[in-house]
């Protein structure tokens, strides 16, 4: 119970949540524009790889690595855009194909570029400085959230509000929303669906590139096969559960991060609970969350046939 108030648990939770949230931003934008983007998992993998490769080639400069990852992954996401926007392929199939391609491509390139298999450690990395403001030390939760975190974390927190502003208050956000809710409305208002859809796909690539970069050069200093470990799918879950609200999505990723951080502590404490059970927690949580949200969506839409509502309210009004 005291873990709830433990600063280091929260700091760890934020670190876990950051890449999830970045990927979720990309997914959220696509979702708003009517594209189911599950390819973000593969995008993160590619982001990880590009960041490690560029950092390695540029003498350990992580800034350049990150920049490369953002630009490179956005470029890479154009393949998904080509399939989904240009050729109107099924979103799920295209996503699966992208994820398979991402895994295969990075394995192949690892052999080609680093001459190795499975794992490549960055030996020459110059880790980025961490953010620290002395006066925040005294404020418990803020301290855990911000101090001694990467600047990427700060940027991500700022992005929560930028995203909210973008979606709720700008013309671009309105156009994106229109595409998702009624393509007809967008078209008849003279909006070009393809242009908006391309933009959200490329942005999702950029976000995932940053997520991958953070994962491979800030949390770790390596690229390994399978290091993304389904984070893209977890991010998608956060988007579904968080609704269309970036703040909601952020809270859900924080919840996932918290479950993960607690899992590690429980394991270290030696409670006898197998570690595999504990590392399962976020995924069980994801499953529960998805089930609840899909059932509630079903009930909100017209529940045809024998689908009875769970609660039978009083309708005896007259």
């Amino acid at each position: 119970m005291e873990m709830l108030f433990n600063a280091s648990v929260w700091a760890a939770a934020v670190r876990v949540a950051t890449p999830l949230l970045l990927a979720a931003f990309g997914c959220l934008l696509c979702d708003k524009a009517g594209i189911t983007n599950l390819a973000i998992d593969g995008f993160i993998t590619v982001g990880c790889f590009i960041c490690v490769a560029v950092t390695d080639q540029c003498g350990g400069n992580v800034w350049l690595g990150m920049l490369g990852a953002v630009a490179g992954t956005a470029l890479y996401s154009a393949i998904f855009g080509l399939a989904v926007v240009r050729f109107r392929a099924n979103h799920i199939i295209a996503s699966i194909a992208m994820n398979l391609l991402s895994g295969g491509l990075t394995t192949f390139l690892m052999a080609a570029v680093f001459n190795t298999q499975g794992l490549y450690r960055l030996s020459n990395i110059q880790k980025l400085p961490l953010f620290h403001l002395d006066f925040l030390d005294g404020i418990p939760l803020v301290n855990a959230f911000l101090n001694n975190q990467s600047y990427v974390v700060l940027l991500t927190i700022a992005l929560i509000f930028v995203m909210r502003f973008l979606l709720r208050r700008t013309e671009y956000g309105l156009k994106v929303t229109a595409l998702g809710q009624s393509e007809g409305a967008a078209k008849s208002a003279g909006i070009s669906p393809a242009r908006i859809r391309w933009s959200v796909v490329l942005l999702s690539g950029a976000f995932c590139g940053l997520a991958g970069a953070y994962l491979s050069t800030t949390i770790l200093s390596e690229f390994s096969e399978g290091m993304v470990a389904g984070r893209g799918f977890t991010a998608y879950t956060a988007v579904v559960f968080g609704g269309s609200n970036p703040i909601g999505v952020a809270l859900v990723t924080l919840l996932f991060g918290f479950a993960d951080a607690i899992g590690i502590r429980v394991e270290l404490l030696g409670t006898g609970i197998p570690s595999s059970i504990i590392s399962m927690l976020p995924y069980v949580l994801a499953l529960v969350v998805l089930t609840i949200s899909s059932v509630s969506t079903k009930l909100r839409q017209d529940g045809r046939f024998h689908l009875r509502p769970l609660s039978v309210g009083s309708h005896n009004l007259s």
Partner: protein
Amino acid sequence: MPSAIELLHITKRYPGVIANDDVSIRIGQGEIHGLIGENGAGKSTIMSILYGMVKPDEGTIKIFGQECEISSPMDAIRRGIGMVHQHFMLMPDETVLRNIILGRTPRRGLSIDETRAAREITEIMDRYSLKVDLGAKISQISVGEKQRVEILKALYRQVKILILDEPTAVLTPAETDGLLNIMRRLREQGCTIVFITHKLKEVLAVTDRVTIMRKGVVTGAGETSEMNVRRLSELIVGREVATEVPMKPFSPGEKVLELREVRTAPRPGRMPLHDVFLSVRRGEIVGVAGVEGNGQSDLAEAIAGMIPLEAGSVRLCGREIGRDSIRRRRQKGIGHVPEDRLKTGVSKSCTISENLILNRYYTPPYSKRGVFSHAKISRFSEELCKSFLVKTPDATYPLSTLSGGNMQKVVFAREFESSPELLIAAQPTRGVDIGAIEYIHGKLGELRDEGRGILLISAELDEILALSDRIVVMYEGELVGQFLRGEADEYEIGEYMLGAKRREVRDEE
């Protein structure tokens, strides 16, 4: 009068069909111009061409005397053309305001200036007395209000020409009158309106001139004052149309269907039934009038067995069927033409003959011990297609090759062929053209004259009035009024439909 729109010799070919064949239409400035014709006559195609959504193969378009090319809705909007589509183009989870400004957003810095937008729209609303709550979400407002939002969208873009594509199809009589008034006000302000419809009464009530189309060509045009219903329907269908359904004098027999205190459980998005008493006798057509979404769907589905009853009883020919499965009910003599043809009436990917045996495929002679006899099925379906005038070269074609009217004929053929004691006909003529409506109405009349009971549910009040021996009105899941043929006109019934009037309906004895 100078022309607002001149469409000259427009031709549009699709593989296998000519949607528009050398179509020329002239629409004068400041007039309300009716464009009428059956489904598939090419009205929508020619208007889509005008709105830049379809590219014509040949022909020229002149707007206000100026020849121009319209290659996208953006071009059309820029030239002052606005279109209110038959299916509303609105974002359900956004506010009315945000829907109106989509595509023409006033900005302050990076963000949308909603205050300025609200001021501008309020001005327009005042000028045309069109009132809508700008802060409400689209999903919360009524169909009539949604339509006003669509019109406001066009006015906000300062259109001079407004195309209304079948705008009254979804409205109640009172709402329709309101819309016709709005159209007259827009005309006073100098707006040119193209009014696409297949309801002749409205054409005669509001338009200045009309153009009639059939099978891709213009079959007539002229001043509305020189037209009447008979002449218009001849031009539309290409032959004389029976306006009245021939039926024997009303002589009802014993009760076929009896509902007592029927309730259904509330479900999201649906209006449940609340203590409904209703009966249908042999040789009687009972029409259920009401604004859509007032429990008609639950009524049909509760009788057909698609949703469970929460309380009450449903009797068919005196025997309780309230707990029977759908199949048991059908075997006992219920036929059901469902309201949503594509969702619950047919299977689009199956063949026509498969659709025709959907309610009896498991019985001999169509199948024996679980194996189909294709020879018998195809003989049976060829015969049905012939006798129900389904236009198809072959019953083995996929159902999706049929038009809406012909699909509905397939549903009717299937349900009639099982000679039901009671036929539930929900929205039987929705989306079908005048020729098919005439045919379906005639069939319903025949079934009644054979001594079957018919429960007719329709959002078209004209249809209810034309066919029903008895009319009940549904409002918020209850029956609030009952009339025998000729006891009330559409305005009186309209007041009950809107809940302004009500009286207890138990059961007629």
